[in-house]
Every structure is written in structure tokens, then in C-alpha cells.
């Protein structure tokens, strides 16, 4: 596995959703800056974890990489091909190579389709296989995700949440993708089932050499599955590093607070821990504060934080952070 070669390069990616006002004559009055100037790489064969709170833009990043949303600005370079420059039919061909697993296994499977037709639909849409070849592939996929291939004629409602998520995974793997974007794939599942699905994702990665972008708000699960982690806040990536480096030496005050807020299931550690409680809520992405967008909640602000937006730069090898005072924590 060539670990250092990037599979996807994101450069200055922006995705704004326009806000209109007026009933008849619509005026463009502003933008929700869901993703605001984000740059990072996803390396071959790695799992990049993307964490952040509700509304920070992590799902939008995932969907924009797949070109489900058209980016407002920036580049998405997949294996040296800039997706922004492709036309529709070229893009369709690229979609073979990137797939998505969705959050809600209840809403992302059509209740009127059998498991077999759900899993085989990517094969049909992309005209990859038909007839016996298709049926064999579906059986193979179901077997791979730990479902009994005899279930092909059953409907989604006959399955539990964890099993449905397995169906979603089988569908995502049908076309042998290189990149799978997992958008909160476990957050609607019970704890004991979450571990089953995460273990499955890890096995599949090893077997098939997949690259994952794993989007979630559960920090401890993301740290478990990722090689590197990126933390998003209000449309921007504030910190990106190797997962242990990020956990042990977070350079951004938001990452520090986020780590401290994760409940630890161990009463001994709880007693020793330093608690950092952030004040207030996340500001609206339609109207982010000037300067550093974390300045409304940050415990270490100084004047510069209200005037200049800190740059997202490499503070030490492989560790990027966007904070004026990141050097302090080195």
C-alpha cells in the first residue's frame, strides 16, 4: 500500500448555499457558508476521520467531494483528475470509484425494493453486470457484509438497524470503489451494534484496500477507526493531524475542548480529567463572526483573533492547525 500518495486532493473548496428574500422578486441577500475554503488530502488506503458538531459542514464536505453538490469554488482532484472540469458523462464514470454510506439506514433504503434489487441497482445503472453474473455478485456482496445470501428477496423492513446498515454497505461496495464516504454510518445504531458495523468496515478495508472518509460526531469512535483526523468548526477545518498526535497534543483550543467534552466510560479517568466547558453555542454559518470564527467561544482570545482569520498551516510535520496561538501548545 502506497500510504503517502493522495487519492483525493481538496483545494480551497467552498460550498455556499444562497439565501433569498422576497416573495415575487427574489433577492440574493447572503450565503450560508457551509464549507468555507477547505483544503486537505485523503491518502491512499487510509481512513480520514472528519469530526465536528451539528452544522459545521462535515456532511456538506462529503457530499461535495462526491459532486452531489456542485462546489461554489475550489478543486476536487481525484487521482489527478479535477472533478470540477468534467462533464456529466465523464463524471458518471468517475462515480464508480467513489461511493457513500448514509447515516440513516431507515431512510436510505427504498422500502419497496427487495434487498437484491437494492444491492444490484448500482450494477444496473452503471451497466456493469446482468443476469447470472449480477446475481452472483449480489450473493458475494451480501456474504461479504455478513448477511445470508438467501435474504435477497426480503424487504428492508424485515431487517434490524444494524443489518440495514450492512445492506447499505453492500450497495456502496457493489462497484468496487476506491473511496467510500461514510456519513455518520453508526450514529443511529445501538452501542453493541455499532461495534459490529465498525469491525465490519475495518475488515472490508483490509480485504479490499478501501479508502474511507469517515464523518461522525462521535470522537472516540472516529479516533478508533481513523489513521488521521480532521476537526471542523463552522465551515472550516481547524485542525488536522495523525489521530494520536491530535488526541495527545491538540493545538487548537476547539479541539482541546472537544476532547475534554467526550464522556469517558471509566470512573478513574473521570476523576483525573481536566474539564474544559465551552460557553455558548455555535454561531450561525450565515453570519460568522469576523476574524477567527471560534472567537465567540474561545477561552484564549486576544485582539488579533477578532481582526484576522488565522491561516490553516502546518505547525509541525503532518499537523495542521488554524489558530494564531497554535505555537503555544507545540
Amino acid at each position, binding site marked *: 500500500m502506497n500510504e503517502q500518495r493522495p487519492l483525493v486532493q481538496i483545494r480551497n473548496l467552498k460550498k455556499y448555499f444562497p439565501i433569498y428574500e422576497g416573495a415575487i422578486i427574489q433577492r440574493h441577500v447572503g450565503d450560508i457558508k457551509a464549507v468555507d475554503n477547505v483544503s486537505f488530502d485523503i491518502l491512499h488506503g487510509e481512513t480520514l476521520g472528519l469530526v465536528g*458538531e*451539528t452544522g459545521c459542514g462535515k456532511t456538506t464536505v462529503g457530499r461535495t467531494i462526491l459532486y452531489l453538490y456542485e462546489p461554489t469554488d475550489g478543486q476536487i482532484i481525484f487521482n489527478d483528475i479535477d472533478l470540477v472540469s468534467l462533464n456529466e458523462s465523464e463524471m458518471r464514470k468517475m462515480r464508480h470509484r467513489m461511493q457513500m454510506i448514509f447515516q440513516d439506514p431507515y431512510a436510505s433504503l427504498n422500502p419497496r425494493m427487495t434487498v437484491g434489487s437494492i444491492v444490484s441497482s448500482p450494477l444496473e445503472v452503471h451497466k456493469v453486470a446482468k443476469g447470472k453474473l449480477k446475481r452472483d455478485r449480489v450473493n458475494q456482496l451480501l456474504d461479504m457484509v455478513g448477511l445470508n445470501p438467501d435474504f435477497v428477496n426480503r424487504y428492508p423492513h424485515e431487517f*434490524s438497524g*444494524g443489518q440495514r446498515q450492512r445492506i447499505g454497505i453492500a450497495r456502496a461496495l457493489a462497484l468496487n470503489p476506491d473511496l467510500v464516504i461514510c456519513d455518520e454510518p453508526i450514529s443511529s445504531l*445501538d*452501542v*453493541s*451494534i*455499532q*461495534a*459490529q458495523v*465498525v*469491525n465490519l468496515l*475495518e475488515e472490508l478495508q483490509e480485504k479490499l484496500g478501501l479508502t474511507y472518509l469517515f464523518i461522525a*460526531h462521535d*470522537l*472516540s*469512535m472516529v*479516533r*478508533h*477507526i481513523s489513521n488521521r483526523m480532521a476537526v471542523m468548526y463552522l465551515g472550516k477545518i481547524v485542525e488536522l493531524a495523525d*489521530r*494520536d498526535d491530535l*488526541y495527545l497534543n491538540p493545538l487548537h483550543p476547539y479541539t482541546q*475542548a*472537544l*476532547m*475534554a*467534552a*467526550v*464522556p*469517558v*466510560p*471509566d*470512573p*478513574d*479517568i*473521570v476523576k483525573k480529567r481536566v*474539564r474544559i*466547558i*465551552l*460557553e455558548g*453555542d*455555535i454561531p450561525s454559518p450565515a453570519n460568522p463572526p469576523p476574524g477567527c470564527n471560534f472567537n465567540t467561544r474561545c477561552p484564549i482570545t486576544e485582539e488579533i483573533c477578532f481582526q484576522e482569520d488565522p491561516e490553516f498551516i502546518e505547525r509541525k510535520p503532518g499537523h495542521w492547525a488554524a489558530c494564531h496561538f497554535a505555537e503555544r501548545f507545540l
Partner: protein
Amino acid sequence: MNNKSTLLKIKNLETRFYTEDGVVHAVNGISYDMEESEILGVVGESGCGKSVHALSIMRLIPDPPGKIENGEIFLNDRNLLTISDNEMRQIRGSHIAMVFQDPMTSLNPVYTVGDQISEALLLHQGMDKKEARDRSAELLSLVGIPDASKRLDDYPHQFSGGMRQRAMIAMALSCNPSLLIADEPTTALDVTIQAQIVELVRRLQENIGMAIMWITHDLGIVAELAEKINVMYAGYIIERGLVHDIYKQTRHPYTLGLLGSLPRLDAEPGTKLVSIPGLPPDLIALPKGCPFYARCTFREDQCFEEMPVLEPAGGYEHKVACWKWEKINGSGVQR
């Protein structure tokens, strides 16, 4: 902590739902005591009966289809299951208050936050409007909402998720309850907001001294907050004890599995999660023996035949319902 008197005593509580598909055995004979100003964590996965048991205490089970089949619930020696609806209404709000999971849907969108907090004060405490408004403002600032007297006139949609949950807590505290039941109060919130709410509840408990029952599926939060923990599975309490015993001297294979399923921020890289195979049993057709039999790695024939009773397992008030508990003394946390 041994000198406190008993606040809540539950004996052999059974709640069932009569549905078209059959009888759902939601709560299957649970018994435990809660002391005054104790913080109890009730932990379990979806459908383990943790919320139904709390609603049974409040007598808020919709009937039909639900029915409290059996058992007794004593609050300060008063059996809540035998008193009249009117008396029960007095108890709700003034002695026991409840905070629900979803702060988006449990506030009424067409009334101001102030109106909703004052409602209980006008009803239960016999205050006049002015007094109720002052007290509401006081409560809102107590739960950490800045500029409280102005925010009283806001509608719920003007509050963020964390603020709404704070408002719900203010409402629950309005009549100084001796027991606060919090049913997954932070599940819908982000971690940094969750940390704010947990800190708030901890502070309120220290100042006011009410007992708190914190229902959750998150073993992390209760490790931080609770003194004792009930672990529930398929309508049974399968393990109960002090926080330290539950996490460090785990005796039930399900608790052990649950702790093993959790990734840890400080775990060695590359450790695999220990998942529990299979699914929880169908509550309509419960097995006759131990409900965890099908997923258990310690099972023997006896487990299939007979449901184990909750029996003492060494530590202070540590109880476990497993035939094989003596063989299990794990710290589910260290792997």
C-alpha cells in the same frame, strides 16, 4: 451515604403493552430503592425498558395499549400505583419532575418560554402572575441563560437546542421536586453542549440536593455523573451497583460486552472492538431462561432453562442477575 433515607422504592414492577402483534413485555419485574439526593444512572440499549420504567413511575404509560401489570412504587411510603389520578397529578411536577429527550418537540411552539415555566407555578404553587414571572426568571438564570428576564418572552424557536434543554430543566425544577427523572436529556445535543448540561445538572444537584435518575444509553456520561447504576436488558435489571463496581468489577456478561463495544480515546491503536454478536430478544416472545442467553459467551444449559434472579455479588449493593457471575470478574474497561 448510608444515613440517607429511602426516597423511592420500586417492588416487582411489570409493565406490558397489548398490541395487535402480541403482548410486549417491556418491564419484567424490577425492584430497587433510591435514596434521597442520590444520582442513579439507568443504562441500556433501545427497547430495554429504561424509558417505560420511568414513565411507569410517573404513571404516564398510555392505557391502552400499555398497562402496569404488577408491582408497587413507593415515594416516601406513598404507593403511587394506588392513589387517585388527582393525587398523582399533585405528585407530578411537585415531587417528581421529568425532562425528556427531545428539547425540540417537548416545548410548545406557540407559547413563550416564560408562559410554559410559569404554568406549573400557577397551577401547583398557587402563585399569582407577577410572582410566577419573577420566579421563572430566577429559574432561567439558575440554569445559566443570560439576560433571563428578557428571554422569558421568547418563543422556543428563538432558543438553541442547548438553551431549550436548559429551559426544560428550569421547568422541571420549578416546584422543587425531590426526584428529577431525566430521560436521555442530552442525546439530541452536541458534545460540547452536552458537557454544559451535565455540568449544570451536577451543580444544581449539589445546590438543591434533589435525587436524579439519569436515563441514557451512553456509559460515558453516567461514569461522570452517577453514584449508582442500573444496567437494563430486555426489561430486566441485570446488574446494579456503585459506579466503580460496574466499570471495574463487572459481573454480567452483557455489561462486559457493552463496555467492550466502546472505543476509548486512550486505547492502544489497533485494538479491535469487542462486539456483542446478534440482537436483543423480541419482547413479544421472550425466552424462558436468561434473555441474554442467545448472545452470551458464558452460557450453559441452566441459563437456557431458568431466568437468574438479581442476587448480591460482593461489593456494596452490587447485584447481578447471572448464573455464572462468579466466573466473571472483568474490568470491562481494560482490555
